[in-house]
């Protein structure tokens, strides 16, 4: 089911926790759907210097959260915004098809945290306001895709 890399990031997740005075905090997902990711970023001079997360969710959700925090650290805010869900999944040696939505969640968590950072710093256009957080379960879940052919 899961690659060794996913299992490693699930069993030994990097950067679990909170950042006390985070510069941006984003939470996506929803408990009803069974996954919530909360991402904390420390940003200095437009560069992400630390990232931590808390996740309620399945193995893939935890592993993508862990991987996402590893990927963003050291990147500029704009670089971080360009991290795609595919990049997160690839870095984990792939995810099972039914679990790809978890990598969406990671991408969205990064976006949400950065938006929070921008909002706090008055860098946000109205129209960029976070759209990721309000999705319904069936937007992100695609377990049955395969079966409905």
């Amino acid at each position, binding site marked *: 089911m899961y690659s060794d890399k996913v*299992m490693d990031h*699930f*069993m030994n*997740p990097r950067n*679990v926790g*909170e950042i006390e005075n985070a510069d941006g905090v984003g*939470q996506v997902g929803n*408990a*009803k*759907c*069974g*996954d*919530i*990711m*909360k991402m904390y970023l420390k940003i200095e001079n437009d560069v992400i210097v630390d990232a931590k997360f*808390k*996740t*309620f*969710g*399945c*193995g893939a*959700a*935890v592993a993508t959260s862990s991987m996402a925090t590893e990927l963003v650290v050291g990147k500029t805010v704009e670089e971080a915004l360009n991290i795609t869900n595919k990049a997160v999944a690839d870095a984990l040696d792939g995810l099972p098809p039914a679990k790809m939505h978890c990598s969406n969640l990671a991408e969205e968590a990064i976006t949400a945290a950065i938006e929070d950072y921008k909002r706090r710093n008055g860098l946000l256009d109205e129209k960029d306001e976070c759209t990721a957080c309000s999705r319904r*379960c*069936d937007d992100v*879940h695609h*377990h*049955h895709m395969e079966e409905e052919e």
Partner: protein
Amino acid sequence: MGDKLIYLDHAATTFVKPEVVETMLPYFTHKFGNASSIYTIGRESKKAVEEARDKVAMALGAQSREIFFTGSGTEADNWAIKGVAYANKAKGNHIITTAIEHPAVLNTCQYLESEGFEVTYLPVDENGLVTPEQVAEAIKPNTILVTIMFANNEIGTIQPISEIGRVTKEKGVYLHVDAVQAVGNVPINVVDMNIDLLSLSGHKFYGPKGVGALYIRKGVKVTSFIHGGHQERGRRASTENVPAIVGLGKAIELATKNLEEYNRKLLTLREKTIEEITKRIPFVKLNGDRHKRLPGNINFSFEYIEGESLLLMLDMKGIAASSGSACTSGSLDPSHVLLAIGLPHEIAHGSLRITFGEENTQEDVDYLLDSLVTIVERLREMSPLYENVKRGNQNV
């Protein structure tokens, strides 16, 4: 992880007992004859099939000619429900079931709805119980079938089948019972309980997978489901799966013989585990009826964590268990059973089912409990939902 395996998912499937495998083996190799063939090795196969049929009948208090072998519990459910529906559509098109049936029953009912049948899904109480009164009230002049499971596969709740059987008998409506989880765990007598049709599956009581049986009380009108040759007295076609049927027969015989002792053993493990989890882990809830439940079944919700993560961490410790989380249910939603007993989605996602069996010991329970305490704590530490709890605010 290593090779340690503490298997606590006997409701999903069981290993096949060595003595059952032993009885099956010759039928793969030198006793491989087709049970419908008239020469010696064919007749030997036939005899083995009929002996197995006798054993199944004996275990249920049925007559041998009322037992029909199938390829699975699911097939038995499909056959019973579709078979009664199509055979009796002149009489009516209404079927009654419950909201917490196995998909084998629920999806079959939904299929029949798409074919013009009308289905009532009885709600259950917070413990997963339906009442005979609910059934009586739901029966209409066009009702042809009531199909209710004996024991629930997720929360273990045992329904008042005898009482429901009295209602259906009085009202002249057929009663089908999905007893896949019950056979081998609870005493069953189809005559005393007024059951008209009953499904069972070999791999839930240390028999082989891919074989089940349907009890059809003599006189009940049921169309065939699998059409073809004249096996099973013309009612279920396919070359008889002799080794599996023989294995099913042996397994049900063993299960019936050991029932009391097995029950006592499982009950001890169950009670200890329920007690300890409740004592050692906060924010938990036992799902299913505290007492009217399968002796080996435990189902807990652990708030603030998600079931798949829990299972994976248990797996890394060599413990195999199951969950009603959406991630493991194969659907968008968490278990329909947990939702039907009133759990909110987020709590349903954090459920854990433990089902004990034959080989489990007190040490397994101790190991499980220690592992569970650590893992639940660890996952909660990782959970954004738990932050607020720790801050004294439980309204997340």
